[in-house]
Structures are given as structure tokens and as C-alpha cells.
């Protein structure tokens, strides 16, 4: 049990997916303009990351590895994730239109969210068991949500802050992200 908590904490704070590992920067920059958008995106990422890990892990361990097809890992994983996202989109559209209208737009963008593919590769590279992989996936998605909401909050403050003119717009967002990233750097060493 303590192992699982360790994996979770380390995925959320120490190895924060956006601020420390630089994954999923496109939605981090594009989706953080207001809190509502970032909540929607975070929900969609959490859902798809866990689902993708739950499908790709058994696929790799029980199909690709025994058949010696490890070189097909990139190809199969990206196809699985892309078709999974499509399926989820169709399913939600049909059964839960309300949820779809709040999450649907983000789902389409998720195929090219590199955090998800990275998680599925990470759990294989780190040799996690199935349960550990799922906990890791939830942790990474939570870390993504945390950093996205933090930046969204900062951006709302930035709108009324006096900023040197040459930094206005995108540059100041990266400077803000740098400061956030320094703060998260302080978590290193939280787990021995």
C-alpha cells in the first residue's frame, strides 16, 4: 500500500508531468485561459489516461512481449489510444449528451496530448504491475490538473498586472511557468 502512495505522490508532485517533465505543454498553454476550460480538459485527460493505460498495459505484457513484437510498441500504442478516444467520443455522444457537450471538444484534442502516450510508455519502462500502472496514471493526470489550474489562476491575475511591454502575451506565461516549476522543484527529496 505504501508503495502505491509513493508512486502517486511522486507522479503528482515530484515528477510533475507538466512543470518538471515538460509533457503536455500544448494543452497547458492553450487550455489554461480560464478555470472552466482547464477543469474540462483535466477531467478528459484523467479519464483517457487511465483508460489507455488499462488497455495498453495488458496488450504489451500479454500480446506484444510474448510474441516478440516489441518493436511495434509505438505503432500499436498510438493506434489504440486514437481509436479509444474515438470510441469514447461516440459512446458519450450517444449515452451522455450532457457530459459530451462539456467534455467532447477536449476529447478530440487528447489524441495528440503527449502525456497520455508518455504514461503508457513509462509504466512499461518502469516495470510497474497493473495496479501500480493505474495508480501512476491517476497520479500523472492529477498532476496535470493541478498545474493547469494553478496556471489558469495565475493567468487571471496577469490580466490586471503591470507587465513590461516586451513580455506581454505568451512570454510572461512561460516566465510564470518557470516560477511555478521552481516551486515544484522544492518537492524533490520528499520521498527517499
Amino acid at each position: 500500500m505504501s508503495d502505491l502512495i509513493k508512486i502517486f505522490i511522486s507522479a503528482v508532485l515530484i515528477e510533475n508531468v507538466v512543470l518538471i517533465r515538460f509533457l503536455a505543454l500544448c494543452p497547458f498553454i492553450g487550455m489554461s485561459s480560464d478555470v472552466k476550460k482547464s477543469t474540462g480538459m483535466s477531467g478528459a485527460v484523467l479519464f483517457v489516461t487511465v483508460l489507455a493505460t488499462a488497455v495498453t498495459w495488458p496488450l504489451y505484457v500479454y500480446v506484444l512481449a510474448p510474441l516478440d513484437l516489441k518493436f511495434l510498441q509505438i505503432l500499436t500504442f498510438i493506434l489504440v489510444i486514437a481509436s479509444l478516444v474515438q470510441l469514447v467520443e461516440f459512446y458519450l455522444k450517444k449515452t451522455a449528451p450532457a457530459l459530451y457537450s462539456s467534455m467532447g471538444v477536449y476529447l478530440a484534442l487528447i489524441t495528440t496530448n503527449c502525456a497520455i502516450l508518455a504514461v503508457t510508455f513509462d509504466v512499461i519502462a518502469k516495470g510497474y504491475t497493473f495496479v501500480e500502472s493505474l495508480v501512476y496514471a491517476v497520479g500523472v493526470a492529477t498532476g496535470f490538473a493541478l498545474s493547469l489550474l494553478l496556471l489558469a489562476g495565475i493567468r487571471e491575475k496577469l490580466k490586471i498586472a503591470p507587465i513590461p511591454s516586451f513580455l506581454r502575451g505568451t512570454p510572461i506565461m512561460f516566465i510564470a511557468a518557470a516560477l511555478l516549476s521552481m516551486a515544484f522543484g522544492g518537492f524533490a527529496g520528499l520521498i527517499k
Partner: protein
Amino acid sequence: MKKYLSYFTNGILRENPLLMLMIGLCSALAVTTSLANGIGMGIAMTFVLLMSEIIISAFRSLIPQSIRIPVFIIVIAAFTTIVDLVMKAFTPELSKAMGVFIPLIVVNCIIMGRVESFSYKRTITESIADALGMGLGYTWVLCSISFIRELLGAGTILGMEVLPESIRMGFFAQSPGGFFVFGLMIAVALAAKKALERKGGSR
């Protein structure tokens, strides 16, 4: 000839994928802790972009509109696999330093974006000019970021020591430095673009 030249120069500053369009950022910030990594990633990315654009452009009349995205993904994934395996075999150290970011070329929005918006509609030669321009635009930004970060963070250029240890700043070698240097680079690029526009009228 002039047309090809304008496609080629397009990616270098005016539509630079990293500085202007802000796509494909993940790999650009993550691997740029040393100049060698930056060059390696730039070459890997340019290769995948070039080959994918050539293939998609060559088969563009055979790919049905409705399933084009899956087809693009398979083509890009195939070339990414080639790069991944070649790098593992010939430059194992570089491949280890970049880790998961080589497989992640497959979800790099630059490639998907160029294939979808450019080479699916254009001829092979036009696509080659575009891919080389975009690849070069990506590579030079990567090289500049990694040059600054390696010089200030580790005090070296391509592994050679230049700065004495007392004035090195570890900040630049770590994650915050990546965001910081990139933020400043965008500020400089935007200022340069504005200056160019003022000078060249409608350009």
C-alpha cells in the same frame, strides 16, 4: 523556384512552429539541456517530418478524406519507429538521454499539422521544401535554447568546458530554466517579427 524558396523560408521565422505557432513544445523544452541533445532531436524530427510529408504527398490522391487521420498516424508512427530503432542501435547514449521523447515524436503536433494542412494538398517537391524549412526552423530554435542552457547551466559547449565553476547557474540546466529561456526567446522573436513588419510593410 521562388515559390519553393518562400515555402522553405516560411518555417524559419515567419511561421516558426515553436516560436510563432507554439506547437510541438514538449520535446523542445525537455531535451534541450545539452547542445548535443538539441541537434540530435532536431535531426530526428526533421527526418520524420520529411519522410512523412513525402509519403503523404505521394499518396494523397489515394487516401480517402474520411480516414486520413489514422493513415497519417500510421505513416508517422512507422518513421518514428525507424528513428527510435536506429538511434538505439547507433547512438545509444543519445537515445538514453532523450528517453521517452523519441517515441513521442509520433504525437508531435508539428508533423500532424504540416501533413494535414500542407502535404495532403501539395506536390512532392513543395512538401520537401516545406518539410526542410519547418525542420530547420525547429532545429535552430532547439539549438539556440540548448546552447544557452548548456553554457549557463553546465558551463560547457558540446561537452567542452568554457565557463569556470564559480559562475555556473544550475537553474538553467533544470526544468525552470527551460521555461525561462523559452519565454525570453519568444519575446525576442516577437520583437524581431514586429521590427520586420515595420520595415517591410505588409510582410
